[in-house]
C-alpha cells in the first residue's frame, strides 16, 4: 500500500552511481530504472527535509541516505526532478500517455524523506529515458 501522495509542486532527488551516468556525469536512463524486484523508483522528497535552500536539502538527503546504509561518496550524484514537470513530460511523450505518481515511503528512523515514483517497471526503458530528459539539476553527493 503506497504512502501519502506527494504534491506535484514538490521536488525529489535520485541518487545514482558512476555506472549510470555518461562521461560528463549526466544521468542516463538506467539511473531511473527501478530494480527488478522493486515496486517503485527510490527517491528522496526534498521539501520534506524542512530546509529551504537546495544545498541544505541535498546535504540532508545525503545524510539520510548514508544513515540508511547507502554508499554516499563524491563520485555519486543526485539528480533533481520537479514532479509536475517530470510527470507532464512523461505523460505527453510516452506511447501510452503514462501516468506516474510519487508517494512518501519513509524508512524510519534513518531515511524519513525516502519516497517512491510509481507507475512503471524495470522493463520500461522508454519511460526511464524520458525521466532522464526531465532532470533539472545534477549535484555531486556530499555530506
Amino acid at each position, binding site marked *: 500500500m503506497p504512502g501519502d501522495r506527494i504534491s506535484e509542486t514538490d521536488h525529489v532527488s535520485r541518487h545514482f552511481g558512476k555506472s549510470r551516468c*555518461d562521461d560528463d556525469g549526466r544521468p542516463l536512463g*538506467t539511473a531511473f530504472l527501478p530494480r527488478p524486484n522493486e515496486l517503485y523508483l527510490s527517491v528522496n522528497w526534498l521539501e520534506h527535509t524542512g530546509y529551504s535552500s537546495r544545498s541544505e536539502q541535498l546535504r540532508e538527503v545525503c545524510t539520510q541516505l548514508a544513515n540508511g546504509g547507502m554508499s554516499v561518496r563524491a563520485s555519486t550524484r543526485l539528480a533533481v526532478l520537479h514532479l509536475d514537470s517530470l510527470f507532464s513530460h512523461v505523460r505527453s511523450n510516452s506511447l501510452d500517455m503514462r501516468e506516474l505518481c510519487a508517494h512518501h515511503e519513509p524508512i524510519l528512523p534513518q531515511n524519513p524523506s525516502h519516497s517512491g515514483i510509481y507507475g512503471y517497471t524495470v522493463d520500461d526503458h522508454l519511460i526511464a529515458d524520458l525521466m532522464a530528459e526531465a532532470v533539472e539539476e545534477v549535484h555531486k553527493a556530499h555530506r
Partner: protein
Amino acid sequence: MHDLNAVSEYAKFKASSAYVTALGTATDVHPDYRTEVAAEVGTDFSVTTNDLNWQRSRRRLFVANSDLLASDQGYVNVLSKFEEVSFSPDMSAFAVLDELRMPEEQIRRQIRKFWADSLLTYRERLSRRLEFLLDAMEEDGEVWSDDSPDSLRMLLRFLESVPDFRYPTVTITPSATFRAQWTAGSDRHFAIDFLPDGQVRLVVFCRDLRHSNRIKRYSGVTSWDSITRDVEPFDIRRWTTDAGR
C-alpha cells in the same frame, strides 16, 4: 595418474607448472594463455598442443581450488588443490571453464579480448569505458548477474557488425545487463539493452520527417541480429554514423 587437460587461468597454471612438467602430460592450455605459458615453462604449446588433437575419451578437466596460491609448488601440494569437474564429451573444456568463472571474471576476459582483437576505431576508448564500469559496479556495491557476460558478448558482437557506428555510451541496467546508446539531442536517441538469449530492448526517439515539429518514439524487443533492419524506418544512421552527420 591425473592428466591436467585444461587450465583455466595463467595464474593457476603458473602455480601448477611443477605438476604439469613433472607429469609431462599437459595436453592443453587455454589459447589465451599459451604464449605466456610457453614463456614460463619453455614449451611451445602452439606446436605441442592442439584442441583438435585432443584424445576426447581421455579428457579430464581439473580446476584449482580457491586456496591455490601462485607460490604453491610441487606435485603433491598442487594436486591436492585441484578438483575434477565432470563434463560431457561433446563439450569444449573451455566452455565448461567459462561457465565456472565468476561473471566479472568473464567480463574482464571479454574486454581484454576485445581490446586485443577488435578493429573498431574506438576499441581503446570503449575498452576503457568497460573497465571503468567494472570498477564502478564494485564501488557502487552493485552485483553482476549470470546474464551479464552474455549481454556484453552480444553488445560487442553487435558493434562489430556495425563498424560505421560511432562510439556509443555504454551503461549498466539494474538487471546488470549492458545498454548502449547514441544520443545527439531529444530528437536523436537510440538505445539498446542487451538481454539474455540474444534478445534486445530498443528505444528510439527521432524527428518525424513528415511533421518536423513532432518527435516519434518507439520501444520494443527484438533479436540482436534484427536490430538494424527493425530500426531502418527511423533513419538512425543520421546520428549513429559519421556518414550521416
